[in-house]
């Protein structure tokens, strides 16, 4: 009995004497929402920027009455060989422990991207705090620390603003693609695929964007813009795909949810706006006599959003004609993406993987010089488009006017 009670006391002591292992009070954490990566002065040296949230400045109406004068975030920069080293080094500057579990955004400066990103990413993946679902972007023409330091309107935390813009621009416009950290890691490790990362640009003078006053303006001096997709080869940024090319990439990636395409009518260019409402991508590969081939089949559904010319939308023939034009336009955009990627010799679409799945034996020797073969790869694109709705009205008002003129 005595030994049993002694054991009980020891067990209880175990709870109290451990010192609360791994206990981190919320007040001791600096919540990092974004990490920036830039090229350092020396080879192999990197500049890491940590965008840390000041919670009381972000949440208004709280106990501390939300200090409006404080910036919503603070950016700490530190040089180091690896993330881990830099993060620990930053404790010399930050008053709290950097906490990485809520990193939503990893930004790479263009210079570093061109120099190569293969070396730096390991500690991101190895850390138990950083999530693999963090979004990856490239700061186009700038360093990451410049872009991360910009205050943004509406969303007080710049990382949230960036992620929001990235998400909605992919969903509504389709000229960017949201790439998670995990996608890049997997693409780097795969011979049949190369990574691609969307870009963020800054419009305006970056110095002005670091002041809170920037967002007090109704038309901020500095604003972020998502646009363009960076194509990588062997871990290095080799070129940008922009506009229609970027949308083509989205299409081939199967991530295009919705977009707007303009097609011609009455011999005038881009007169009818068509909203893609649904799209399905199917990529098939085969190897014929040692030569790989790719067939892309797109099935898309659309509705008419905008008509600037007088056409009879009530007639099926007109609708079919529009659908045909849409098919052509879609094919052109996709082909432009393929051409661009072939020019850069980087298989960002994962065609190599499709070939490997279709013919693993042939892939065995194809993969040896895949970048070259990819640049010569014949790609056939088949598009099937269906226009389902003309919108809330059928006939354009221009047509009504025409009719009336004729009747009089």
């Amino acid at each position: 009995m005595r030994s049993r009670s002694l054991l009980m006391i020891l067990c209880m002591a175990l709870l109290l004497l451990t010192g609360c292992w791994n206990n981190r009070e919320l007040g001791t954490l600096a919540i990092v929402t974004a990490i920036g990566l830039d090229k350092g002065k020396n080879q192999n040296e990197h500049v890491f920027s940590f965008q840390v949230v000041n919670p009381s400045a972000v949440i208004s109406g709280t106990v501390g009455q939300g200090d409006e004068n404080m910036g919503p975030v603070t950016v700490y920069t530190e040089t180091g060989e690896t993330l881990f080293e830099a993060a620990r080094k930053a404790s010399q500057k930050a008053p709290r422990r950097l906490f990485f579990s809520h990193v939503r955004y990893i930004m790479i400066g263009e210079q570093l991207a061109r120099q190569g990103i293969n070396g730096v990413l390991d500690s991101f993946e190895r850390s138990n705090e950083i999530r693999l679902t963090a979004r990856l972007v490239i700061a186009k023409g700038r360093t990451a620390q410049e872009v991360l330091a910009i205050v943004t309107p509406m969303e007080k935390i710049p990382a949230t603003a960036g992620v929001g813009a990235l998400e909605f621009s992919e969903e509504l416009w389709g000229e960017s693609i949201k790439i998670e950290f995990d996608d890049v890691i997997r693409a780097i490790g795969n011979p049949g695929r190369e990574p691609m990362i969307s870009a963020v640009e800054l419009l305006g003078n970056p110095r002005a964007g670091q002041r809170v006053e920037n967002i007090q303006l109704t038309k901020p001096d500095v604003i972020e813009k998502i646009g363009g997709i960076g194509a990588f080869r062997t871990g290095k940024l080799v070129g940008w795909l922009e506009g229609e090319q970027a949308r083509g990439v989205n299409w081939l990636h199967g991530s295009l949810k919705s977009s707007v395409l303009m097609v011609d009518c009455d011999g005038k260019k881009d007169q009818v706006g068509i909203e893609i409402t649904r799209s399905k991508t199917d990529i098939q590969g085969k190897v014929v006599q040692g030569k790989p081939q790719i067939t892309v089949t797109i099935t898309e559904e659309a509705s008419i959003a905008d008509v600037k010319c007088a056409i009879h939308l009530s007639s099926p023939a007109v609708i079919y004609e529009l659908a045909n034009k849409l098919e052509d336009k879609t094919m052109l955009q996709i082909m432009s993406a393929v051409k661009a990627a072939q020019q850069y010799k980087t298989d960002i679409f994962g065609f190599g993987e499709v070939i490997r799945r279709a013919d693993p034996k042939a892939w065995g020797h194809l993969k040896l010089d895949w970048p070259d073969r990819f640049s010569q790869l014949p790609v056939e694109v088949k598009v099937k488009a269906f226009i389902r709705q003309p919108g809330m009205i059928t006939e354009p008002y221009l047509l009504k006017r025409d009719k009336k003129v004729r009747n009089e």
Partner: protein
Amino acid sequence: MKFIRKFTQKTRTSSNRNRDENHQGSAIDDGHRPLDTDLDINIKRFREETGNSPDLKVRQFELGSNPQIRVAAIYNEGLVDQPQLNEFVIQPLMLSKDRGRLSEASGEQVFHFLRNHALPVGEVDTVENWNEVMNTVMDGNTIIFIDHFPVAIGCNTSGGEWRGIEKPTTELSIRGPKDSFNESISTNISLIRRRIKSPNLWLEMYRIGEITHTDVAIMYMNGIVSDQIVEEVRQRLTGIKVDGILQAGNIEQLIEDQTMTPFPTVYNTERPDLVSRYLLDGRVAIIVDGTPFVLLVPALFTQFFVASDDYAQRYDISSFIRLLRYASFLISLLGPSIYIAAITFHQEMIPTPLLFSLAATREGVPFPALVEALLMELSFEILREAGIRMPRAVGQAVSIVGALVLGQAAVQAGIVSPAMVIVVSITGIASFSTPAYNLAVSARLIRFVLMILAATFGFYTLTLAMIVLVAHLSSLRSFGIPYLSPYAPFQMDDQKDALVRLPLWMLATRTKAINKKNIKKMEPSGHSMLKKQNNRPEGERHEE
């Protein structure tokens, strides 16, 4: 009322006799001495033994003539029914027309005359020793001593004041019956008997408490209840040897299976309708004189989540509300500990925007989350305890101060975070939604342990603690029935009335975990037959 009183009186005295017979085997104690033949000696002795207590009245008068025979009526002023005593005992003794027959009668003749002719009360007993004399008087009955005869007469005159039958105060319901038990055992028995008019509703009386002689009744449905359980209850009750039983809670703690557990293994209720329901479900009710709560055994974990309204309302809303009760039990158990674990160990599990607002509200709070939570929980417990004990007149003051100090001021002073106030309030409200107060209390206790565990290793220890808790729950028994049934051991048929309550016509069997025989309580086809008949077209019905 009177009928009931007499009925209980009878069983009471008959069981007394059994007890006395049992006692005769043991050493003859002083109480069993026979009465003296001399009236004066008897009265003197009674006076001495009761310390001349003035509320015990001795009324002497004389009967017959030539020679007159003296008799004395002894009763307890406060416990007798005064009008009854006057009208049916004193008056006949003093004014009887037949008194003339008593001339030259011996003590024995007077005794027989009185017993058989003179006393128009429902129940008359022969009292032969001092022990019986005392019991009879203390029960509120009247003893009549007769000079020159060593046997006295006990007449049933018990009565006195009780609180009336009032609305339930702790187990409220919207649609269920509105009566509740009071402190009188005979009233309580009658409330149950009125609901179950069956000769198979059996009653056994015990007197427990060497000094208090408290009446304890057990009730059960003969033919439904398992004999083993009744036998077990009998044994545990007769095993109690204690000076005083002052309320049902004392009995509960003396007969429960497990003392070293925070969970109650005996159910109590103040609602006669719930007692009747559970009697029909093969439980044994233990009714203790002087307590408006009736105990029910065996008690299952699920039973504590059942309210009377569950069967008054339709099944859909009853099921929803019952699920809600389970959920709020979990909240009251785990609320603060999950919050503590999440914000001190598992910040990555909190959605990012929520984390920011939590972090913002905790900016400047000087305490770690655990201390903050303990502070708030303890002050809430103090407030609750004060709310129960305080005189009604100062209630307002406590609630104002409580609301101001706990809510407003503590947050504005930056001592606690608003989020913690929300967590503590939700936990507090959730703990009130468990219908059974004694189970809600156990959740309150365990909550503090869980909070400390959550602050040491986070969800890891919390998970371990839950495993231990479930293991402990499944190890419990209530009068031999596994506490966690019908979940463990799993009993398919009982699931119909556990987490949810299915339509009444589907609940065709009694709780299988408890009942072994007479399992059916409804013709299973009862409801569906009704439907078929209604749907059948007219013509077909004629053909039959």
